[in-house]
């Protein structure tokens, strides 16, 4: 096959944008089939282009990096930013996830949204998202990445608030946007510092400069850690990490395909991608790496603990997403970027699958999301059940499903990392793995097994149905990927050759880390793998006992440990904490001190005082206005004399002031 011309890279983002323009402007008047045809066509083509790109980049002798010609965007003296797209192996993986999973979810949406109002709007926004997400991963500089970064935030805002008549949806959209802006605040400041210290925002220039100055770290150049920490703030916003994760659970207000695409598979992984992309910067700052690892581990276990007690099926998956993103951060933080991206890839498969399957369940139950009102769906929605099972086993880390290999790689790399906290990080990761397995099997048992708890009234019972094939087809494909997707990265210890990591070697090559790993040998790796499988099995057993064998047990335990249960079910009161200690005081301060006292009192008060003074002067003047022309002339003469005097003697007057 011929290699792909580099200029075709532009079509990967621009085709979905064309789809957005068509559906966004004409969609209201087009029939639904046309709308979906347009949306699918303009996402299928980029997926095909990415396949071509694979062929091009994997052919013998292909260069590891492809770059388009630059077109200037911002160009002023001493500072330029270009529109340039670039592809390396990391971008290739990301593009595959974005266009591939994106296309599957577009197909699914045609079925899922079939009966919704605003069908055209949904697909227009979805295509807009694909545009920005492609820009994000194809960007060759920080600012272009930021274009995609903010753009996917916009698409997310629009899609979370898709049902804008619902107050909760509109609120959730707003919250997502503003919390993400807090992260962007960090990202922007990081870019300003980059401009100050590197004079450029181009990835290659910045990273080459850092690589050429290995002494910076030793000399204690404090700007590198500062830039990294600010970038972490940005990543924490987009990838829903502590302390900015609070928007993601609320984002579940959006339609389920949106949760699958944006809030699980692609957009929320942008932070991980960014950290991996900037690995040269992060490697230069051990402090920043430790922060990434700590945030990741803390978020992983924190979100998992909340996920164990949620009743809303989508919320469980939302907290699970936060927790899994924590794993990816943990991987990056211990320098195992390839492992982080590997988990990103497998997670995209199984989490998209889980969300879509959950959507199929919700669809079958006509909108019910509460797991307490599900149960026994195994026989009624068999295909959904089997595909979702693949996802559940994958995320729980049961070999040989996809999640096992990627998660295990992260745990192993955490254990062997030179980070002083490495054992603690590994332990937290392991504990989280057990909790993950527990809450996922809890979801599985509550939804598909046991007695049906579906509301009896109305025809709810009657209409429970398996979804149409247009929704099931993506489920089946993703289920297959959730099973086999991890096999690309089977480590040497388990008889594979770690193909995935080697594929990313040109991007992340870090001889020091590799040397550290190779000294430990396979024995340790096998032991660790066995431990984590054991923990996953333990999670399964608990879930089996609590929610299948003796369904009352969980409630009984919750009753016995009320305070602990209250903490978890109220999500540690973090939202409330932010409201009471940050938002409310800020608004009270603004209303009370700034508006009432300063604005009304000082600013407007001084204006009023000036007005009164002038009125006083006017009164004085009026006393002088006699109607006598000669007196006017006199005043005029005096005035002129004063001005003259000022002009002549002014300098000496002022000189003595």
């Amino acid at each position, binding site marked *: 096959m011929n290699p792909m011309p580099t200029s075709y890279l532009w079509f990967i983002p621009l085709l979905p944008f064309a789809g957005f323009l068509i559906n966004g402007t004409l969609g209201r008047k087009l029939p639904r089939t046309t709308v979906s045809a347009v949306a699918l066509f303009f996402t299928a083509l980029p997926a095909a282009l990415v396949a071509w790109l694979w062929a091009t980049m994997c052919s013998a002798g292909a260069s590891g990096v492809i770059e388009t010609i630059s077109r200037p965007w911002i160009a002023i003296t001493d500072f330029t930013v270009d529109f340039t797209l670039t592809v390396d192996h990391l971008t290739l993986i990301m593009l595959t996830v974005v266009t591939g999973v994106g296309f599957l979810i577009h197909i699914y949406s045609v079925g899922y949204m079939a009966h919704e109002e605003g069908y055209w709007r949904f697909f227009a926004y979805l295509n807009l998202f694909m545009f920005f997400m492609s820009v994000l991963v194809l960007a060759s500089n920080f600012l272009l990445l930021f274009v995609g970064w903010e753009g996917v935030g916009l698409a997310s805002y629009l899609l979370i608030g898709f049902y804008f008549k619902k107050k909760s949806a509109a609120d959730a959209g*707003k919250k997502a946007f503003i919390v993400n802006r807090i992260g962007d605040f960090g990202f922007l400041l990081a870019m300003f510092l980059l401009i100050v210290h590197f004079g450029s925002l181009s990835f290659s220039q910045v990273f080459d400069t850092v690589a050429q100055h290995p002494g910076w770290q030793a000399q204690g150049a404090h700007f590198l850690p500062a830039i990294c920490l600010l970038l972490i703030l940005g990543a924490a916003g987009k990838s829903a990490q502590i302390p900015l994760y609070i928007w993601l659970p609320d984002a579940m207000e959006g339609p389920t395909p949106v949760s699958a695409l944006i809030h699980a598979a692609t957009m929320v992984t942008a932070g991980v991608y960014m950290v991996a992309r900037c690995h040269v910067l992060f490697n230069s700052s051990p402090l920043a790496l430790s922060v990434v690892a700590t945030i990741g581990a803390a978020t992983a276990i924190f979100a998992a603990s909340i996920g164990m007690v949620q009743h809303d099926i989508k919320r469980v998956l939302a907290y699970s997403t936060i927790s899994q993103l924590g794993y990816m951060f943990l991987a990056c933080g211990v320098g195992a970027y390839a492992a982080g991206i590997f988990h990103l890839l497998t997670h995209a498969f199984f989490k998209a699958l889980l969300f879509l399957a959950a959507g199929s369940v919700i669809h079958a139950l006509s909108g019910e999301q509460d797991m307490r009102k599900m149960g026994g769906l195994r026989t009624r929605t068999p295909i959904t059940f089997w595909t979702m099972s693949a996802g559940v086993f994958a995320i729980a880390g049961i070999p040989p499903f996809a999640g096992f290999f990627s998660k295990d790689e992260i745990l192993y790399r955490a254990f062997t990392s030179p980070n002083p906290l490495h054992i603690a990080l590994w332990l937290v990761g392991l504990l989280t793995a057990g909790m993950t397995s527990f809450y996922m099997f809890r979801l599985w048992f509550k939804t598909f097994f046991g007695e049906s708890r579906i509301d009896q009234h109305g025809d709810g019972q009657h209409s429970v149905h398996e979804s149409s094939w247009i929704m099931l087809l993506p489920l089946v494909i993703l289920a297959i990927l959730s099973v086999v997707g991890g096999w690309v990265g089977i480590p040497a210890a388990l008889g594979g050759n770690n193909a995935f990591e080697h594929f990313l070697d040109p991007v992340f090559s870090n001889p020091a880390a590799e040397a550290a790993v190779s000294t430990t040998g396979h024995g340790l790796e096998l032991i660790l793998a066995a431990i984590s499988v054991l923990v996953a099995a333990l999670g399964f057993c608990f879930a089996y006992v609590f929610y299948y064998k003796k369904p009352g047990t969980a409630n009984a335990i919750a009753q016995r440990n009320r305070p602990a249960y209250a903490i978890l079910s109220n999500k540690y009161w973090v939202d409330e904490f932010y409201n009471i200690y940050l938002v409310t005081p800020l608004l009270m301060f603004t209303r009370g001190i700034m508006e009432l006292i300063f604005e009304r009192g000082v*600013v407007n008060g001084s204006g009023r005082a000036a007005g009164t003074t002038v009125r006083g002067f006017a009164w004085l003047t009026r006393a002088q206005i006699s109607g006598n022309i000669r007196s006017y002339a006199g005043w005029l003469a005096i005035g002129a004399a004063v001005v003259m005097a000022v002009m*002549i003697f002014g300098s000496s007057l002022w000189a003595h002031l």
Partner: protein
Amino acid sequence: MNIDHIILTLIVFVPLAGALLLALLPDRGKTMQWAALAVTLFTFLLTLHLPFHYSYASPSGVFQFEQNLPWIASPVIRYHLGVDGLSMWLMVLTGLLAPLGVLISWRAIDSRKKLFYVLFLLQQVAMMGIFVSLDLFLYYAFWEMSLIPMAILISTFGRTKRRRLAAIKYFLYAFIPSALLLVAMLWVYAKTGTFDLPKLADLAAQHAISPSSSALWIASLGFLLAFSVKIPVFPLHGWLVDAICEAPTAAVMVLAGKTALYSILRFSFAIFPEQSHRIAPLMIALAVIGIVYGSLLALVQNDLKQLAAYSTLGHLSFITLGIFTFTIAGLDGGIYQILNHGISGGAFFMLLGLLYERYGTYDIREYGGLAQKLPWIVTLYAITTLSIIGLPMLNSFVGEFLILSGSMQSPFAHRHILTALATTGVILSAAYMMRMLQRVFYCDLGSKPQAVAGWDLDTREHLALWPLVALFLAMGLAPSIWTRAIDTYGTAVNAAVLSPATPTTLQVTSLQTTTGGAR
């Protein structure tokens, strides 16, 4: 025909002739609207002559389309007009906003139309005059002239009973510092014998205006104060909220920012480079406070116009911050942002006016759920919101990004903290604009939309708004079209004011000691 040498005169006086024409025409039917539209469109076409015939290669300091005629022999006042990279696009912007202002007032102003459009055109004359005058005296005439039509527009066409108060406040705030400005200008003339700006700039570069640094300081403050009130800079914004709340939409679009920011760049920086640089830390601090203060207050307003007024304060403070960093990025971004604020803020005020025309209120609490009824209006509101909060690929992002990156590069103390504080404006502006969007357009129908039918955009309103949306995109994606001219100016100011700063300070101090000793 080559009209390069009279184009500026034409641009200034066509609206004036138009005003006279309107005064003579009978105020019947839609005569006034059509006539005003024709005049402003023609003026806009004239301003478009500038970017197409501008010589982008020529260095800054060289004025183009110049016209320099003697006017009054003594004192020496010349009719000296010219534009450079700083003013050229401001002319086009002013030219563009005028016909849009006419379109948006088409139905909103239904009585005393003649007065309205005549004043509106006079206001345009004054603004154009400000941007092209290179003679201090001539400039001052236009500067003062810009006050009066606006004050009358506010007091006559204001929305509530408070319009008189708002007009008086506006006038006093602008007039008193302007008197100081006049004194300072006369002092400059007394010292140098010229009102001519290029000459004064040369003298200033040679430190030849006055040996007395304290006198220079006082004169520079006279300039700066007059301009700062008019921008406005925190805490001199007492007039802004009332004026914005009262003034009709077309007047609000040109009310704040542009002329005063331009004047600082043109006059303060040229005549008092040293003093402007020395006072920059104060101005930067005030600008940063203005950003945070304006944005926070916008967050708690329940009146759409007040929200927009505080948002204006915040966004103008960004520009003040940018130009006083004296970095190339800050200056370029600041000047670019004047244009952006003109069109984004203009679009926002136009949209607010549309809502008021339909529902007769600016109270957020009476709105809600409009998205169900007015799909076009909500689309335009959303796009304008995105422009105002600085979404990348739209216009304001480029300006704000350059400003803030310039602020990070500035040579002044505490730049990291100040830049971080200013950048919180990015979060806060998203917060108040998103809150506005949600309260007005989402959730359930509010009380007003339930009671009043309302209607979506008509053709005239589409025509008034879509050009601005097109500009949002063009200016966000291809800013070089505009920054090409601006950059020559920004680079020159940066080079002139910043680099010789330390030696100049020494020089002036030594001069002062010598004069002191001689005395």
